[in-house]
């Protein structure tokens, strides 16, 4: 198949960008194409909460003018979707919650600002688990998102709408957020590429907080190259986020030519134990052999505390969430219960009616963990575990360049399959959570299929080693075509 035979909606951002610059396509044409695909195909997926055709076309016309005037950049005119957790001025930001169903922010998130400044065209806001709490995108107030590879299955979560939309070719790229795997796990389950940057690399300003010390925004796209382009535009110090790191942003897209010959890949013994689907394990082993063929060395390593990452996470994240979500009280904005007879009733009913079951569960867990008398036993202990988990990674990175393993222990599961059993659901993040606790960057890339469902390979890097991660991912995508596959019915 020659390059030109690939339909526009399956092309990479890099390819679309080249066509825009050459004048073989316009931004308006691209926007119209993707809006039409959303219109035609999204009813099967429910990956968008809000679509904004008029604004998108208006922006596209402006982009075409910039391209014609020669004042454009590599992302100018490229369509994009934002996870509905990023505040967008004048456009509803619901966080997939009834609580914010009526909320329109008077400001843009820094990520939104920066991608806008880079010339990208926002088509709409994608569906997600409510307040990013979930691993299957089933907790959304707007209904579950379906996996384009099998619409009876989940796309993963919480950035399930973004992943499904990119996988189905409804948009070339989307933003996501990752608190415990919410970019990587849906990227894996939908067969696309998703990066969670180092904590502090991308500003959290205007990104609705779930667990502040873990949340990190990042891009989802089809290829590592596209993700590199997007990260370059999203990343960087922001004086409005005290936890963002003042450190220059590399030109990630220009660091994709390095060889992996001589690269030392750490493979974690603990990742290949109980709970890992054997077919998924086989795909990962196969990907590792591919890297060996490219000259990389495999080194078996141990992360002794990795089994404790799930319990540590499910104390820290709910604790922070219980406090972060206290502002949704019905007083100033958002959902307010009808006709309360007292202030207390207004609080109780607004929150009882405004939040879904999983959010309430986590608020309760977190409130409990921070309570007088339990703080030391839960929150403080979880923080200690967090340190130990970070130290495990530090010692590992003394002898390896990257760590590879499965992103998720299984391929996509059926809608409703795990919803009634939160612990089983939580275990689907077992390989991704430790990365957030340590604050490291990690990427998930497509690495094959099991029974027609995508498998994701997770590559974890050292702090601020995104350039290396992206190059290592890109080299794999140069010799494989898993990332080029499209789901049946969405080709």
């Amino acid at each position, binding site marked *: 198949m020659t390059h030109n035979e690939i339909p526009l909606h399956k092309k990479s951002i890099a390819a679309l960008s080249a066509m825009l610059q050459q004048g073989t396509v316009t931004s308006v044409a691209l926007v119209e194409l993707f809006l039409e695909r959303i219109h035609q195909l999204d009813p099967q997926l429910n990956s968008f909460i809000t679509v904004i055709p008029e604004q998108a076309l208006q922006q596209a016309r402006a982009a075409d003018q910039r391209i014609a005037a020669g004042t454009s950049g590599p992302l100018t005119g490229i369509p994009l979707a934002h996870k509905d957790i990023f505040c967008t001025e004048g456009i509803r930001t619901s966080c997939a919650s009834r609580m914010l169903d009526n909320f329109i*922010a*008077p400001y843009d998130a820094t990520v939104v600002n920066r991608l806008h400044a880079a010339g990208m065209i926002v088509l709409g806001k994608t569906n997600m688990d409510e307040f990013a709490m979930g691993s299957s995108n089933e907790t959304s107030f707007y209904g579950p998102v379906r996996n384009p590879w099998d619409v009876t299955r989940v796309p993963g979560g919480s950035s399930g709408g973004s992943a499904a939309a990119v996988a189905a070719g409804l948009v070339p790229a989307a933003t996501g957020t990752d608190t415990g795997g919410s970019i990587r796990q849906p990227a894996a389950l939908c067969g696309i590429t998703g990066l969670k940057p180092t904590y502090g690399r991308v500003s959290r*300003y205007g990104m609705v907080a779930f667990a502040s010390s873990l949340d990190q925004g990042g891009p989802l796209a089809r290829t590592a190259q596209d993700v590199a382009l997007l990260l370059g535009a999203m990343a960087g110090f922001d004086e409005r986020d005290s936890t963002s790191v003042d450190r220059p942003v590399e030109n990630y897209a220009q660091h994709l030519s390095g060889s992996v010959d001589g690269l030392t890949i750490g493979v974690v013994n603990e990742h290949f134990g109980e709970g890992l689907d054997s077919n998924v394990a086989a795909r990962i082993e196969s990907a590792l052999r591919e890297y060996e063929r490219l000259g990389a060395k495999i080194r078996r390593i141990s992360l002794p505390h990795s089994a404790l990452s799930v319990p540590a996470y499910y104390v820290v994240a709910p604790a922070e969430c219980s*406090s972060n979500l*206290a502002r949704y*009280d019905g007083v100033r904005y958002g959902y307010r219960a009808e006709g309360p007879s007292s202030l207390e009733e207004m609080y109780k009913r607004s929150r009882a009616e405004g939040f879904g079951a999983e959010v309430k569960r986590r608020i309760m867990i977190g*409130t409990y963990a921070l309570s007088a008398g339990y703080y030391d036993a839960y929150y403080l202990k979880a923080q200690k575990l967090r340190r130990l988990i970070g130290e495990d990674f530090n010692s590992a990175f003394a002898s390896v360049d990257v760590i590879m393993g499965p992103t998720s222990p299984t391929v996509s599961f059926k809608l409703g399959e795990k919803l009634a059993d939160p612990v089983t659901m939580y275990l689907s993040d077992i390989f991704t959570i430790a990365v957030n606790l340590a604050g490291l960057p990690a990427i998930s890339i497509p690495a094959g299929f099991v029974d027609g469902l995508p498998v994701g390979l997770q590559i974890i890097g050292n702090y601020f080693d995104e350039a290396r991660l992206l190059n290592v991912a890109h080299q794999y995508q140069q010799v494989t075509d898993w990332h080029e596959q499209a789901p049946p019915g969405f080709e």
Partner: protein
Amino acid sequence: MEWEVVIGLELHAQLATKSKIFSGAATAFGAPPNTQACAIDLGLPGVLPVLNGEAVRMAVKFGLAIQATIARRSVFARKNYFYPDLPKGYQISQYELPIVSGGLVEIDLEEGETKTIRITRAHLEEDAGKSLHEDFHGFSGIDLNRAGTPLLEIVSEPELRSAREAVAYMKKMHSLVRYLEICDGNMEEGSFRCDANVSVRPRGNPTFGTRTELKNLNSFRFVERAINYEIDRQIDTLENDGHVVQETRLYHPDTNETRPMRGKEEANDYRYFPDPDLLPLVFDDGYVASVRRSLPELPDAKKQRFREQYGLSAYDARILTATRELADFFEATAAAAGGEAKRAANWIIGDLTGILNKSGTAIAASPVSPKMLAGMIRRIADGTISGKIAKEIFEAMCHGKGDADTIIERQGLRQVSDSETIERIIGEVIAAHPEQVAGYREGKHKLLGFFVGQVMQRSQGKANPKQVNERLKSRLNESD
């Protein structure tokens, strides 16, 4: 039984920064509701706090002024509770690791005695908004202008032993924060607030009694009254075999009593934990040293210097150093009065303070400038005018009649010191009052005052009183 009173104060000083502690919104008082509240103050989704460096600098200044330990690493924590004027559902404060800990101040008691009070800690936090319960017909209004205003909470050890000591401590702190220019000290506007923890115990008992926390103490007078009421109430309760309940009580100035606040406030478990949106506050010795260099002369040091440099009494020195403005006024006057420091002190503490208090004028807006006051003092010192005439001139200066020399010239108030004139007037007075002269000569020496009065009257107050005294005595004692 003899009871011992135990009091600790929690002071909240609003730091005089231009913008809020975690946002760029202005902090000015009195703006229309919600016009000084930005997205961050409103607690909108996704917004993040960014610490105001000026607030930190002010807290460090305070810590250095009370010889406290400045934490090289302190941590902001969230205090979680629901209240309509608390937009985020938590207040950003400091809990386990405050910026300032372990300081001390010396307070002035009566009779020139002093007492050292230890400060447990001082920490940075944000203020809440205000709930407005009037004019909303079944609703409450929320004004978030104040939300996010920086506060320094200053916690004393429970070492105060009476309401008067508590007030003396509070005044000392009030003076200190204004010296440091970190708080405007305006108690009516709530810039400087006080909560008091009060308990009593049998004297000699090593353990503390159950305490109550008193709120709504927005003047020095209310602090004293509320604490005294509470002491009496607690002793009364205990002596009638009752128990003091640990609770928060509100002071009601109209009835001069304290009443419990509704109990629900007490059930709060604040679930403090480090705020993940803010990095720990870390600074090095260089930063602390630079803040130290910016410290002004503090009240105690100034007081000591005033005693030594100007030879003032402890009392005068204390009064004059109560505020930086007053102290500066005094020093400017003393300097311009050419060494007449004691006279300057007397005039400032006496007449000037009198007229300022009467009209409610701040020293900075005094109608008499240090230069004018000094000009008058110089005329007293060189004998141009008497102290009595000076009072007249001072009065005239207050009413904008110009400086002392102008008034003296215009109204011919120059003191009469030439002996010829004085002798002539004395002669007239003696001649006019033969009976009194006889009485004096028979030993009624109290009559001297009468003669002085007569002479001064005839000279329209301008005769040099010292000369009049001497000459009168001499003339009256002469036998005819």
